């Protein structure tokens, strides 16, 4: 019996996701400062409002997880608002009149991709 040769199909997975997920963490000058999830989101919104005004403050985004000890969070944002949110995060420079900074660790259209980080992998 003749074996049927394997047929290959090239599948291109065009990004169907309408969201982008961002893993960020906040760096504060005073490491002891505690910040709640609400304050964290408010800080991001005020950053958006400073840079993009009231129109920018209305950009929909969600804080999916927030770790109060490490001050890291996962944000979900529509693709159309990603660039604005990212730039607002970059330009946010102070929290309660103290210098602060947002570090964007990972950005991906798939939430699963944020479960691991190849840069922190130890082989």
């Amino acid at each position, binding site marked *: 019996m003749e074996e049927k040769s394997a047929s290959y199909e090239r599948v291109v997975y065009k990004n169907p996701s309408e969201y982008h997920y961002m893993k960020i963490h906040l760096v504060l000058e005073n490491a002891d400062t505690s910040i709640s999830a609400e304050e964290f989101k408010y800080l991001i919104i005020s950053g958006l409002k*400073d840079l993009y*005004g009231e129109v920018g403050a209305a950009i929909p985004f969600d804080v999916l997880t927030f770790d109060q000890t490490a001050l890291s969070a996962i944000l979900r944002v529509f693709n159309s608002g990603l660039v604005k949110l990212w730039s607002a995060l970059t330009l946010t420079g102070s929290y309660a009149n103290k210098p602060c900074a947002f570090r964007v660790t990972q950005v991906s259209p798939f939430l699963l991709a944020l479960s691991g980080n190849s840069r922190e992998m130890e082989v």
Partner: protein
Amino acid sequence: MVRLKARCVRTNKLFFPCFVSFLDGCGACVYVCRYLLCEVCVSQRSKLQLLEEKAIFQAVKSAVAKAHGEYGAALFSIGSKVTYLNAYTGVVMLRFRKAFYQLLWSALPFINSIGPQGRKVPCFFNCIYVGGTIKTCQKFLVRYDRQQLYRMLPHCKTGAEKQEVRRAVQTCSHSFYKATQQEDDDDDDDDGGEEGEEEETIVL
């Protein structure tokens, strides 16, 4: 030089005789712009006399800054200008860069007063025309003002007012209208070969 369209060169030579030397020298920025013809609507028409170019510029600037933040204010700061203001009819012409005029335009409905603190005139902006050149805006404005005269006629109370408006209508519909029509025809002959919207550029 940032951007230059072949068909704009002719216009620029007309408006800026030094345009070529601009290009030869340092890299000048050439912007394509859009002109927004807006009507300033106020409750009392006598308040229109208080309008100034500077006050309108400030009002638009603060509205843009409020709606679009520092990003909007930065976009506004390059190439924006109040080109024309008619304090009698309350018509204002604003110039924006073409690339961002829609963003800046979106802030105009948020203007609700013009003027310095204490002498604020409550008003709103009504955009009546968007043009690529001052000339097309002017043509539209002449047509628009003529229509306004016709609309004014039924609202006249005294006979003298009616007579005055009628006289104004007649002058513009005979001599001036003919003159502009003639000019329009000449223009059409000139740029008959061109397609699309007319554009003009500014050198900053």
